[in-house]
């Protein structure tokens, strides 16, 4: 077990090393990406350019620059943005994380509850028009890009019908902290939650229905029915429990990549200052330190989530031990 854990740790470090080298190399291989002129400012003289290049260490060999950046990112943690010189990227990412967690946590609660309900109802009534209708709705949810749905939600709630009784409670876009104003936190996030959840409700509902339907022919289901258990108990107690294995492992990965910054488009559309929006800004400005910090943060989450999913597999399925 210890060896397995150490092995996993080694793999994680290797993945992080690979990703960071790749990000660094791609950045410096991009024509025009040299940050010196952007730091020095418009029409900077050759002397000013040289001074800035020296001050930021851009005149050193690339491997040295890479090691200095990694040292500042992971050891001293005082790496500053190239665009906003007073912005330390590590605290910035850590401050953005609770926003992303609020968004993704709320959306996850909605999508789990809704998809379990939809998947179970559709499986129970398989073949009926309710089943077909729900699965059709799921498909519609999957087909709508989140940024489009978000913009439409904004158009309706912030612009066209903002002053109607239905949406006059909707606050302006942005974020307030849960600790400062719990009701404001909820009001700011409820629409982004629903928008982000729609896609996942569709996917998870369909996956769960398929797994449930497949499990109906399994021996243990037949046994349960033969024991004289009610249909609903067979479905909810026996069927749903085993069908949740795929659901749970899928959820682990999706949740991790969203917390790691995958909710970028939702955060940008709703003006939520989370990790995704930070990533978006870093890419827009080609701000290497911030790109590096957000990518590393995201990679750590995804790698960790993979490890957790593997562990859950070990617990759920004895054959994988």
């Amino acid at each position, binding site marked *: 077990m210890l060896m397995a854990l150490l092995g996993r740790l080694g793999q994680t470090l290797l993945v992080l090393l690979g990703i960071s080298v790749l990000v660094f190399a791609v950045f410096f291989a991009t024509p025009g990406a040299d940050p010196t002129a952007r730091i*020095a400012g418009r029409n900077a003289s050759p002397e000013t350019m040289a001074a800035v290049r020296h001050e930021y260490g851009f005149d050193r060999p690339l491997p040295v620059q890479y090691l200095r950046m990694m040292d500042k990112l992971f050891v001293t943690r005082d790496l500053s943005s190239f665009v906003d*010189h007073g912005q330390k990227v590590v605290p910035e990412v850590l401050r953005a994380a609770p926003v992303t967690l609020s968004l993704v946590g709320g959306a996850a609660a909605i999508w789990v509850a809704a998809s379990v309900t939809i998947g179970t109802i559709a499986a129970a009534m398989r073949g009926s028009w309710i089943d077909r209708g729900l699965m059709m709705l799921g498909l519609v949810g999957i087909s709508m890009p989140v940024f489009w749905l978000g913009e439409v939600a904004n158009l309706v709630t912030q612009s066209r019908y903002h002053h109607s009784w239905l949406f006059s409670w909707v606050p302006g876009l942005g974020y307030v902290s849960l600790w400062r104003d719990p009701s404001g936190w909820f009001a700011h996030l409820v629409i982004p939650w629903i928008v982000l959840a729609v896609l996942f409700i569709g996917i998870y509902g369909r996956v769960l229905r398929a797994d449930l339907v497949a499990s109906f022919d399994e021996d243990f289901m037949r046994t349960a029915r033969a024991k004289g258990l009610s249909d609903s108990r067979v479905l909810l107690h026996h069927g749903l429990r085993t069908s949740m294995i795929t659901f749970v492992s899928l959820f682990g990965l999706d949740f991790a990549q969203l917390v790691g910054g995958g909710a970028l488009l939702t955060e940008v559309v709703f003006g939520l200052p989370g990790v995704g929006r930070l990533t978006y800004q870093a890419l*827009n400005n*080609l701000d290497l330190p911030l790109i590096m910090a957000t990518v590393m943060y995201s990679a750590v989450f995804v790698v960790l989530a993979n490890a957790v999913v593997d562990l859950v597999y070990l617990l759920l399925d004895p054959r994988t031990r």
Partner: protein
Amino acid sequence: MPSAMRVLVVLGALLATCPALAANGDHRGGTLRITADAGAGTIDPQINYFSEMIQVQVVVYDGLTAFSKHPGEASNHPVADLADALPEPQDGGRTYVFHLRDGIRFSDGRAVTVDDVVASFRRIFKVHAPSSGSFYAGIVGASDCLKDAEHCTLPGVQGDAAARTVTFHLTAPDAEFLDKLAFPHAYVLPADTPPHDLGNDPAPGTGPYRFVSYDSNRGMVLDRNPFFHEWNAEAQPDGYVDRIEYSFGLDDEAEVTAVENGQFDTLYDNVPLDRYGEIGDRYTDQVHIEDVFALYYLAMNVNLPPFNNLKARQAVNYAVNRRAMQTFYGGEGAASIACQYIPAGLPGHVPYCPYSRGADNAHPVEHWAAPDLARARQLVAESGTEGQHVTLVVPNRAVEIAMGTNLQNMLRAIGYDADVKPIAFAIQFNYIQNSSNKVQISLTDWFADFARPSNFVSALYGCGNFHPGSDSSPNVSGYCTPALEDVMNRAMSESLADPARGDALWAQADRMLSADAPGAPLIQIKKIDLVSKRLGHYTATNLYHMLFSQVWVR
């Protein structure tokens, strides 16, 4: 879109004719709320070069001089600010002696001294201000400071604490010296301000407001400077609102909606094109259109084929459809057609256009009317460059990509095998400046730092601003001729004694550039400000747009 444009045109005309409302009644108090997409970089006033931050800093800091805060043409000119009067140049324009006004305090309560002024000018070099090698390079000792910033003593700036005077010695006469002192990088900060980029920690200033907090990712807050008193209302008037709250994080579409809903009082970013119709129709009295000294232009590399050929460059100038460029930018309300290198409203601008249908260098017209494709095709054929491959580099924003596609069609129509290469907006301007990237032709814009023609002529076509192989080389065309240098130098030196003669020389430089065509001016853009219903007494200056100290909120 045509109806939206019409609305904006009518709106612009109406606003231009309406005199500004007089400030009456007691409108002090309240919080001005502003929204922007992203932060504005470092808070250090001697380093930051973004208009978003500069617009805020003009109500926080002062220099020895300041651009007048009276709206319109008056705001082009420097007036005395921390100095009690504008000095007469001495020694043929090489020496200026300023007397420092008494009784002014920084927002931390300390009095402004001669030492603060002298230290601030040394700090320009110690922090490597972007303009240290251009605007302030003419001060005696500046060249040593540029080479060794740490030990910069700058003997060209001498303070006399007893007499409260600061004396500047220049290496050569400079007709724009008072403008350069009014530029934000020359703001006066306390002498003990650290000699490095301040990042997010503000330095105390002397204006009516002070920074309370700044977070380049979330927002900034300003409140009143308790030690401020009005000493010259034209240089630094007292403010109406008690507090300014600037919030970052919404995209431009959401910013417009938030201002329409009254959640913010104005937005920093440009109103997106698709909202012009809506704001023109439904929020007419909340829209203000201001002229800006800014050009969109094509820079043609005079050192690379095909544009190392004069006829090829002239062909582009004849063929380009400037009206289409205006339409892409939002129509007549949002931009005016430009055919010259010096924008309208600046000294030296004399209406002149040789590249319109039926016109040429010998028979110029005053205003551009239509492209002349036939003549352009003929010039390309005569140049022998027909069929060559040309790549146009544009920033990857919607407006510029639309312009780029039109320009690509134009280049094809006159006989080139043309491509468009959109590049990330954040790096496009640095990319096209570097001659190593071998950019043949590019679309870009340029804004004035102060209202002088040199900002467009010397900055973009002077030999001193062409640095081969560097990302910082604003002379994108790589144009450098002794004839133009001579006229520019004469304009600079003669403007001091005889401004009219100087203006005439700048106009001559403009015509010389037109004839040689290292670029193709396209449009002069305007700033469209959308404000909330409760915002009143809208006041704007030509260089810094809306003046936050002069608007009030009800």
